[in-house]
């Protein structure tokens, strides 16, 4: 079987696999947010960036190749990943203490993993109204990191196209498939894959707040690096 080196360790891969896919299968964690093992890689958050032959490259979209020497766990890359995480925090409105997703949030867990102690940059404080029009689900756009996982899930799994990215640049935002712009007027359903795929706290179930107490949540029990392994093991 073909293989490449990840931080000096030999990782085998199958033809067509990307570096991140092969790494995850081998139980190695490379920080990532817009990647999900069940979907086609997107390559937008850039957290999974690794260094190959002196050049940075997103490992979720970079195809694995025989003999590559890939660096991931270096001080330089983790410092850059930390900056990206801080950028995601200041771009939106992330008030962890009052967020239902706290403890289950991959952005928060990644921030802990990377040792983030402050947002570093000035907050943008964007004005993003909440959409509570759907009877069962709530959209809190304040926490959106534009990973497009809900877009992909709704399009590729649910065959619905409930979500899409609109706007450009810093004004990029999530929209839903209704003339009114409200989730309640779409065919979104609680059983949709898109309902469960959000890595942060945008797509939230109504009427069921804090049923698992803070302290007993996913990342209270497990560091995010170990959790990704678990998710894959549960799947296979």
């Amino acid at each position, binding site marked *: 079987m073909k293989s490449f080196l990840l931080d000096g360790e030999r990782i085998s891969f199958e033809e067509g696999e990307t570096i991140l896919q092969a790494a995850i299968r081998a139980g190695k964690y490379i920080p990532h947010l817009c990647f999900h093992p069940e979907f086609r890689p997107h390559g937008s958050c850039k957290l999974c960036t690794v260094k190959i032959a002196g050049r940075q490259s997103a490992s979720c979209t970079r195809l694995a190749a025989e003999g590559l020497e890939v660096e991931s766990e270096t001080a330089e890359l983790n410092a850059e990943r930390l900056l990206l995480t801080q950028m995601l925090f200041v771009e939106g409105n992330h008030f962890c203490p009052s967020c239902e997703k706290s403890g289950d949030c991959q952005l928060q867990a990644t921030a802990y993993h990377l040792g983030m102690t402050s947002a570093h940059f000035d907050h943008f404080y964007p004005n993003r109204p909440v959409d509570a029009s759907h009877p069962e689900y709530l959209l809190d756009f304040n926490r959106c990191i534009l990973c497009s996982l809900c877009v992909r899930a709704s399009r590729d799994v649910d065959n619905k196209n409930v979500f899409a990215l609109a706007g450009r640049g*810093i004004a990029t935002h999530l929209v839903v498939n209704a003339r009114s712009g409200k989730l309640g007027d779409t065919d979104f359903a609680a059983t949709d894959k898109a309902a469960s795929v959000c890595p942060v706290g945008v797509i939230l179930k109504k009427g069921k707040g804090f049923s698992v107490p803070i302290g007993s949540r996913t990342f209270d029990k497990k560091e995010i690096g170990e959790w990704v392994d678990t998710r894959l093991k549960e799947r296979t």
Partner: protein
Amino acid sequence: MRENASQVLSILEKYGKSQSSLMQILREIQEMEGCIGPDAIDLVCEGLNLPRTKIVGTASFYSFFCLEPRGRYRILFSDNITDRMLGSEALLERMCGKLWLEKGKVSEDSLASVDTTSCTGMCDQGPAILVNNIAITRLDEARVDDICELVRSEVPLDKWPSAFFHVEDNIRRSDVLLSAQGAALEAALEKGSGAILDEIGASGLRGRGGAGFSTAQKWDACRNAQDPEKYVVCNADEGEPGTFKDRVLLTRQAERVFEGMTICAHAVGAKKGMLYLRGEYRYLLENLESTLRKMRLENRLGRRILGRNFDFDIEIHLGAGAYICGEESALIESLEGKRGTPRNRPPFPVTNGYLDHPTVVNNVETFCAAALIVQQGGKWYSTIGTEKSSGTKLLSVSGDCSHPGIYEYPFGVTVRRVLEDCGAQDPRAVQVSGPSGTMISDAEFDRKIAFEDLPTAGAFMVFGQNRDMFEVARNFVHFFAHESCGFCTPCRVGTSLLGNLMDKMHNGHGSTYDFEEIRKLNGILQSMSHCGLGHSACNPVLDAMKKFMPDYEKRLLHKNFTPAFDLDWALQAARQMTGRDDRAAHIERGAQ
């Protein structure tokens, strides 16, 4: 809207209800109705069998599409630094004052809106504006006053004085490309596709869009791709601020551009070509269409071209205000009717381009040069210019000089020579190849325009001694933030952070701490961004820091750390709301 429904349906019919024509359909709807309203979107959803999210996602990506009314007269001021140097900011204020409206807002009677837009490619005859996407040049106070009068009396745009819309070519120096005569297509078809590629190979031609990739290699790769359905795309998106040479080529040599595309199609085996014309050049569309019609009548396009077993035709696709679409994979996405987000590469367009078919994407000037090469011989062409950069280059010269316009030089010309020829008196700096290029100081004026020294897509902006290079860099940074596609985190957030830092310094709150922050942002933009826009967004700031540090330092009121928050500044909104600007409405600097 109801009465317009049938017109929307006929627009959909005209484009064969093709999803990849979404941009053209949206443009025609907007030209008819002033904006793309919810009823029209309903009809497009149904006609193209696309979800609303796709249509809104695409439409909202491009600056020129409006989902809400922007006034019967939508006026956009070109906001390149060269427009500002010619006084565009004061003219914008004058227009807002005369029309009684606030920048960026639509007037209460839905008559007009006034805002800024990225460089419209009229730098040699600015300040320039777009009115309902049609270019108006050489603005001055009198012209602003006339325009306000026309707007207030609601004179239709096609009844405005034609002098307003006059666009000069301003060709100041011609060399082999601009003085070329005669037809190239006949000679090319005579030679055959193998010989065309040989000539292009022998010429050493490299892409004129700035990156300088070998044209022969690109054509060869596309020709060798297995998929028999191939496309030829001409990139006329010319969005780099300060560049306007493609505008002149498309005005003067449109037929040659199309010949170049046809020659390429013959060489690679393509049947369909597309010219991606930037939305700012909407006014060129009718002329280009009529050139295509003429060529079809002459059997130089269409079926069995010049009696040979070769079919090829060209469509024009209009952009809608997005710099990123100059990047070839984003351009292809846009051609397909999508948001202009650069693709993950590889695979490259030569194997997986338009609708996933092999596609050659070349710049307007590259196709012109290719036509010339096939006509005159590759060997001949390779003797012009330097060893690594054969041929000539068109420069779009603007800024502080007496003769702005188009200059064609063999590669290897020094910056100093260009400055002398264009009548630049005592220049301080030149921005070569636009914001994404290089800012050079007078110490570097002996450098050469060539891929091996100063590569360029054509922009050449001259700055005199009184120009503040910090403000130049700040203008460019805001350009990048405005044009970032928003796909990847480092560029989406990083360019905005960079803009905020430059504004902080501009407002007199900068400190030496900010220089470290700029370097940090540059590092992450360069190493982690998805495409060239992010990679080069910091260039002007860093170049200006390296070469014109006093322009930054004079803004640092404090040499040590200064917080970004300023109490007096924070009261700005309150002052505006209450209409006060007296002394008591301010908090004095010392009093904090």
